[in-house]
């Protein structure tokens, strides 16, 4: 017959305390979980609520950016490798064929490398957006349910939406900056305004990505929609947006793809900025407005879908 105290987790035995029968603990430090005796005091709930209102989107962006650290190596490899490979293959390899056969005039007096560099930059931003705003969004609702954790805190569904969007925007901006450095390394941008293509390309990314985000958030049953988006939207936007050749080269019945494509608008802007491509000012303004409208509209829509799905 014995009396013994055991920790259920480890099976280790502790000495039983000596006092019998004990009054309840009112004497401060006693054994038991440290949490119950903690001196750490959080700020008042009202402060939490106020901070959540002001910075909630950033807190959530931080959550997503921390998540991206799990695949940081491939993010970096992709950000550096992708521009190297594309600029080399298209801007040098394919260019040798194009420049030899097409004569100088086809690309407004610049080399094929200079012509496609802003297009490749904008396309890469769109493709990253396509990746980040598809499965990851649906999974937040469906598989990993990452959106439901923050929902139990003072944060709102709209902030959950914006936080994810902000994190991806930061990634796209960083990726575009790296891309531009490599473009400069290839000598493919000559203007002093070339730095601004980081912004126009990223704008293409979010102008495409935010409407996609709204769509992804509305998916309840995954039936391969993302494969279809990839095949019937992302690929055509890359291939028919005046990226690899001027839009005017396409037959007239295909040119509308470029007009609605964020990649085309961002590419044209990029060409103005990176080598001074001549374009009327109103057209450049139209490009910017179109991209902003797509991004803004996408965000409004996405916020609504998030709110409906998380709180509905």
């Amino acid at each position, binding site marked *: 017959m014995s*009396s*013994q105290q*055991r920790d259920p987790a480890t099976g280790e035995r502790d000495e039983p305390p000596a006092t019998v*029968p004990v009054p309840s603990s009112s004497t401060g430090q006693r054994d038991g979980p440290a949490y119950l005796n903690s001196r750490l005091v959080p700020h008042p709930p009202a402060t939490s609520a106020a901070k959540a209102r002001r910075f909630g989107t950033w807190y959530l962006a931080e959550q997503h950016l921390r998540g991206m650290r799990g695949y940081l190596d491939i993010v970096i490899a992709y950000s550096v490798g992708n521009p190297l490979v594309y600029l080399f293959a298209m801007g040098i390899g394919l260019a040798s064929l194009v420049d030899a056969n097409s004569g100088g005039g086809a690309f407004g007096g610049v080399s094929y490398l200079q012509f496609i560099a802003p297009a490749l930059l904008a396309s890469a931003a769109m493709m990253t957006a396509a990746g980040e705003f598809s499965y990851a969004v649906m999974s937040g609702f469906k598989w990993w349910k990452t959106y439901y954790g923050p929902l139990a805190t003072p944060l709102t569904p709209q902030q959950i939406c914006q936080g994810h969007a902000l994190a991806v925007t930061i990634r796209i901006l960083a990726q575009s900056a790296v891309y531009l450095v490599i473009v400069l390394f290839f000598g493919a941008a000559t203007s002093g305004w070339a730095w601004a293509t980081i912004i126009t390309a990223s704008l293409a990314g979010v102008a495409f990505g935010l409407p996609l985000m709204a769509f992804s958030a509305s998916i309840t049953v995954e039936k391969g929609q993302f494969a279809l988006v990839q095949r019937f939207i992302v690929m055509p936007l890359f291939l028919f947006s005046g990226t690899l050749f001027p839009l005017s080269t396409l037959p007239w019945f295909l040119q509308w793809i470029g007009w609605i494509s964020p990649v085309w608008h961002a590419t044209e802007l990029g060409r103005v900025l990176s080598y001074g491509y001549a374009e009327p000012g109103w057209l450049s303004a139209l490009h910017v407005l179109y991209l902003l409208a797509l991004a803004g509209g996408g965000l409004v829509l996405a916020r609504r879908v998030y709110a409906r799905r998380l709180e509905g």
Partner: protein
Amino acid sequence: MPQTTSRPTVIAADQLTKRYGDFTAVDAISFEVPAGESFGLLGPNGAGKSTTMRMIGGVSQRSGGTLRIMGLDPEEQGPEVRAHLGVVPQEDNLDQELKVRDNLIVYGRYFGLPLSYLRPKADELLDFAQLTDKANARVEDLSGGMKRRLTIARSLINDPRVLLLDEPTTGLDPQARHILWDRLFRLKERGVTLILTTHYMDEAEQLCDRLIVVDRGRIMAEGSPSALIRQYSTREVLELRFGADRNAGAAEAVEGIGERIEVLPDRLLVYAHDGEAALEAIGNRGLSPLTSLVRRSSLEDVFLRLTGRSLIE
């Protein structure tokens, strides 16, 4: 215990071992299961039960020891051995891309069974699993209990002689569990040998003729549920709660009552032949617990005695 000696041995494990790198999941365990027996592996999560099951099915390669299933080594003769087994894995791994009925038929094709057998058989099994009206549903749309029943129905498609069930009722509500137990009893009556793992002692007590208690890859005890309780525990248990900080102190005061005392963080267990008498004795000492409860000993108590730990953590 039922008469087992005259029947052939279905499973013979000798010094069976599985290591993952430095971690030993199954540590040289030996046991035999005769035909027609319902044999259980009882232990907490991570005890090595599922790994043992996977080795029996020949889908995990052992690191040491020998294993014979109906006379064959499942690693050398995987397809031959598994042709006679039915397996219910711990997690339902139904084919999400197929409809409910097609799950049964396609699974039967893996055994090379002809469609002329499988079509009527699938309907019988849907009925057995009470899923007839869900035949054309998507797996996704089934409830947890329905998925479990479908997994069990699927494991019966080849009329297996030996059924391996890994935590068959985890995650089911009480009613669904009883339906399932009933189905398993019926199979046992047909002579099917049942091998099951569980961390529910009531399930082990209900279903198993004989069981081994497993902890950290080792066998701690072996026998029928009632024999194990007799051997390692008293008839009744008195559970007392004195409040968070007072249990340990109260244990000293209770000393001498019953045959043995266990102090858990939230309560005190007094093992006694007569629980009510023990409670009275405690009252006589002037102790007044916040709550008290007298119950029969269970396999949980056996496990606590053997390992110093609870089954469910």
